[in-house]
């Protein structure tokens, strides 16, 4: 069963020149998601394993350190990346570093292995279902995600999952002024992934995380808020008792603009469904086989950047080279917004949905 309504092909008189407008996929096909590992982290899965959402896939080492093992502590066949465990209560003699009962072999020098280990670990869970494609200790776990994806330009935080919810009932996510105030958050939103309009500030993000919100989807995240949130996230990672993973998915960029209509329609259709936010690549993954994505008309155009950023209209043909404010001459296309006469917009500022 097809779950994407087909668009008519480009080629008719009404769509002439439309192929010179950049394409943006509304939803994409399944992707490979990477969960990064650092030296010392312990993978709990092997290639070929089938995962269900919430399954632990690795143990992340907190405050890793290095230990140099004695020459007789390892077997001849030991290789970098192998797990090592102490064998007896007395264990092999450690030449340098603190005692470690287990860890990951890093490198051998002069017949002695150096080990990355530590006392405390924390679980890494897969927020999505899929199949493990590759496991590389110290590097990452690659999982072929089950379901379709909605791509963003950046994701911050850790992979997470939750029930999708609109940040407010007023359709603010489709409005340029739509945003999230920290005072509008309450514990009733715990476990959800919130869709927010054009911008969000770091205070609202940290409060959302503290309230148990699992993630936020926003159109734009300003650099200052991004930096503050990353600093907060870093402090949170250093804390002894960590909160559940939290992620921010940025759909468009750093400036204020509403979520694109066709993307907002998908998100509205997924309200109440469990979705995952992943960081590498930045995307929302949803596994709803029965959900049909309604594609906009083929001539539906969105202004991605520039003075009309966020507006959506209908393609009305190529306009050729035009002079724009600021004294620049750019290739342009005619776009009709609502019932207004078409106006020329630089082709480079436009996007169409496929």
């Amino acid at each position, binding site marked *: 069963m097809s779950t994407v309504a087909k668009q008519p092909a480009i080629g008719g008189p009404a769509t002439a020149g439309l192929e010179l407008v950049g394409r943006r996929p509304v939803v994409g096909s399944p992707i490979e998601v990477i969960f990064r590992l*650092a030296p010392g982290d312990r993978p709990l899965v092997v290639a070929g394993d089938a995962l269900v959402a919430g399954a632990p896939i690795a143990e992340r080492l907190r405050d890793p350190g290095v230990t140099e093992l004695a020459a007789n502590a390892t077997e001849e066949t030991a290789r970098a990346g192998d797990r090592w465990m102490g064998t007896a209560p007395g264990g092999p003699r450690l030449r340098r570093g603190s005692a470690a009962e287990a860890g990951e072999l890093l490198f051998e*020098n002069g017949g002695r292995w150096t080990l990355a280990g530590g006392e405390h670990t924390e679980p890494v869970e897969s927020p999505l279902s899929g199949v493990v494609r590759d496991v590389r200790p110290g590097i990452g776990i690659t999982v072929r995600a089950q379901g379709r994806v909605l791509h963003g330009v950046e994701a911050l935080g850790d992979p997470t999952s939750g029930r999708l919810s609109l940040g407010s009932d007023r359709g603010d996510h489709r409005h340029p002024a739509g945003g999230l105030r920290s005072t509008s958050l309450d514990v009733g939103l715990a476990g959800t992934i919130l869709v927010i309009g054009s911008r969000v500030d770091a205070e609202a993000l940290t409060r959302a995380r503290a309230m148990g919100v699992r993630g936020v989807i926003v159109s734009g995240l300003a*650099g200052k808020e991004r930096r503050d949130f990353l600093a907060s996230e870093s402090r949170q990672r250093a804390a002894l008792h960590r909160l559940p993973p939290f992620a921010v998915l940025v759909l468009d960029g*750093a400036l204020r603009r509403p979520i694109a209509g066709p993307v907002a329609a998908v998100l509205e259709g997924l309200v109440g469904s469990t979705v995952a936010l992943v960081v590498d690549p930045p995307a929302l993954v949803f596994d709803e086989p029965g959900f049909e994505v309604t594609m906009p008309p083929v001539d539906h155009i969105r202004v991605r950047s520039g003075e009309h950023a966020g507006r959506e209209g209908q393609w009305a043909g190529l306009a050729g080279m035009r002079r724009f404010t*600021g004294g620049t001459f750019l290739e342009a296309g005619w776009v009709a917004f609502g019932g207004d006469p078409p106006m020329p917009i*630089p082709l480079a500022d436009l996007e169409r949905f496929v």
Partner: protein
Amino acid sequence: MSDPRAFLALDLGTATSSAALIGRLAHRWRLLGSLALPAGIDPDAISREVVRRAVAADPALARAVGLIEGATGATGATGAASAAEPGGRPAAVSFANPPRLVARSVPPRTILVCAANARAREPFLDAARATGWRTRDASADRTNPLELMRALLDPEVGVLLVGAGDPPGPDERRLVDELAAIVSGAVARRPDLTVILAGGMADQLSRLEAAGGGDRRGEILLGPAATAGDPAGSALRDLLEDVRGGSNDPRRAAGRAASALADVLDRRVELLEIGFDGGVRASASPGIGGGEPATMVSIVADAALVPPDPGDAIVDRVMAWTTISLDRHRLRDRLRELRLSPWGGVTGDGARLRLAAARAAMAILVEATPGQSALPAPDLVVVAGGAFASAPGPAIALAVADVVRRPGAVAVAYDHARLMGPLGMIPDGGERRQAISDLVDDMLAPLGTIAIPGGIRAGTSAGRLTVHAGINASETDLVPGSLELIDLPPGETAIAEFHFRDMVRLGTRGRRFAVDVSGGLGGLLVDLRDVPLRMPERAERRRELLDAWQESLWMTRDR
């Protein structure tokens, strides 16, 4: 097609795709049209549009170069359109599919440069920075083994350059073994990692090969010492360039095109290209006595229009050139948007912001290539790259004058059709020179001549300038600290006679100079500002000054 009468030169960059249609007319290649658009757009669509416009503009010419297959009304290989016949009646025509000459950018790659200590690492790092790599660095004496291993295992690092003196210096010997051990540990886990063992580290080859096993996809290469070759360091640079992109890298190809251009014009040529993922500076001198041209090419990844995650240093650099009143946070946001959508938001103040970012990138490029700055001043500077795609020609000339502060008089031209890369891809040197010889007048938009006298003293007047163009002569008073703009249209040449009150440098030292100058979109720009350029500390005053300088050269801007 064995003997094409037209072809498409495609430059497929990371941010920009361009197509230039070139046809053979009267026994020489001519540029018939070009179009550049964001890279996300299908290059076939751009090519079709260029051909369609050429056919629509001049069907007879299009037919002469074989772009029209017939007026059948059927859709041809690349599409169909209505083109006006000479009689004025539109007719449906089918287009031919011209052969293509393609220069496709290689994705940017990251190299980790490691050595026992910072002193040993620096020359290797310099070589990597000059050959287009995004660089990271580490040294065994400053980085703990866990951090070093983490850096080595980062999947973004595609190539590892481990270097040591040949032989290793006394301060390196103690750490070389440990460094080799850590690298071996990483090599065992990353079969995809290409490793270059340079200088004294070559002795560790057997150890790394043993660690890597037999199923490696990445290579383990032996590299020369950091100072090997003539000139010193060239051997390592050649190797690093080969590993990064090989001879098909469009930026190296642009260097070859600059070399051919120098040969064709018999002039010293400098190419300055600022692109999305880096910049190129190529300095080429014509061959002497039939010899090959001498060319020095530096590819600097840091000289990108906007780096992937613009930090404070980049924001400061751009802020120093911007004429827009923005605080640091908003400027950083605008730069991040520019990175995400390099063609977006060019209207309004976007073009000025883009040009400020281009100036900052060009300054990085110039700072990273001191060896080329020390060469004799070129006769012609060719500006290229998507960073300048939306800027008016005279404003580009001013950007060059702002950043490349070298006393002398140079002609400036712009590679408006983005042909330097594709033409540099022509494998045969003779054919490349011939193509550039045919196209040189079409492919380079003349921006004018910049004259920068060095050593001007403050005062009310530095002297006088008389420009003899044809039978006309114009006189201009030379005011220290000012920019004098003398109208000299493209295609015109003139003799500029400078009479200075004091000794200045204009190529050589003297008071009186007669310089051949060529016209362009910006005319003759006599730059009497300080060398190097000194700007006010206060941001507001600096913006006003930059704005005033741009005012006279950005003719089309809103006032």
